[in-house]
């Protein structure tokens, strides 16, 4: 059973106490929404959950094992989508996915085509990404997320720049991820359109 748990997370940035004793636990099939005002530490929390930012105190466990024990094995199971899409502007959507996903698992052209189709950016697959709109780039990043085959999704404002249809796509992705027993942690202001039973939330002050 997949489970991500955080216990009393503490993080200081200079003189600012960013994370003040955050604790939560999410199981497979659940989606944790992190809410909070701008600057309340949502991104810091997500980056700490990725293992990118070392904590001052507290413990993060994935399936009961501290994430610092074997970071590579933990990273192989997680997919992170940050403010930046992590896509190359000089490569096309299809090339971006081939390289980004290929680093983790074998992926066929047909899979990539299907993911782009589902994300609604199929028409732009051969165009360098810097010529696409911000919303289209976000959709390509969501297509990458769906291909990564990761059990844990850590998403930072995944709905930014997306139109109404894009929000719907995001909700669909989250629902099928939860349906497959995956865990998702999402920092966002918008309400997630998910069944209440699958949704949890934590608020940062």
């Amino acid at each position: 059973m997949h489970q991500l748990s955080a216990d009393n997370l503490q993080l200081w940035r200079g003189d600012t106490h960013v994370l003040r004793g955050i604790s939560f636990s999410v199981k497979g099939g659940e989606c944790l929404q992190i809410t909070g005002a701008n600057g309340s530490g949502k991104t810091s929390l997500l980056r700490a959950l990725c293992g990118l930012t070392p904590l001052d105190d507290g413990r993060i466990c994935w399936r009961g094992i501290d994430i610092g024990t074997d970071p590579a094995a933990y990273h192989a199971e997680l997919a992170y989508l940050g403010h930046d899409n992590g896509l190359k502007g000089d490569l096309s959507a299809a090339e971006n996915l081939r390289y980004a996903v290929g680093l983790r698992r074998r992926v066929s052209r047909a899979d990539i085509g299907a993911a782009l189709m589902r994300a609604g950016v199929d028409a732009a697959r051969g165009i360098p990404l810097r010529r696409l709109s911000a919303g289209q780039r976000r959709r390509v990043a969501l297509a990458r997320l769906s291909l990564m085959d990761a059990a844990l999704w850590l998403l930072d404002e995944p709905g930014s720049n997306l139109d109404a249809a894009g929000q719907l796509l995001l909700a669909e992705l989250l629902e099928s991820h939860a349906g497959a027993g995956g865990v998702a942690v999402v920092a966002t202001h918008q309400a997630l359109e998910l069944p209440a039973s699958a949704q949890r939330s934590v608020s940062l002050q």
Partner: protein
Amino acid sequence: MSAARTGFLAAAALLAARDLRLALRRAGDSLLPLGFFLVITTLFPLSLDPSLSLLRDIAPAALWVGALLSSLLALDLLFRDDGQDGTLEQLALCGQPFAGLLLAKTVVHWGLTGFPLVLVAPLAATALGAPTAAMPGIVAAVLLGTIALSLIGAVGAGLTLTLRRNGSLLALLVLPLAVPVLIFGARASALAIAGESPAAPLYLLAAFSVLAATLAPWALAAAVRIGLE
């Protein structure tokens, strides 16, 4: 959920292919350090007395200062774009050994900006009046030297990843560490031009490159991780 994981070597090859493709799309950026090296080394013969003995005396210095500055100029290309668009973060989180991936990036970087210097070194050396017999020694020295310079420079580029105006600090950080390469590279070239055996400084350069290749990936991974915090 872990069906058909990519092995490390396949991942490193894929990353190398990606970087080559990106460099190809930005051929101007990748060729800039090479052009810089050629311009510096050919400006010396143009601005000095056309006396062969004087040229030969300064040839090693001109070659190596040119190679050093050119490699410094090239370092900006190594992590800047990947750091800005978030792909470096994705690399750190892809579950592959990070030090290995960064080493693969550095090897490609050397292939694009260091190896071309090896190819044109005979040309630049000829412009500086070096005899044909000196070419094997000079080429070997530039080959070993650029490898070490790329590896040392990569660590500096990793450390200055998050700094806004990182160019000047990068130079301050990398140039002192590159001094041994400069000394032994210039010495090997000088011996080769004088018609003597450059073996001793070449061995030292080779040792330095091996040491850099052994230690740099770990230092690099640690430096870039700090930058990503």
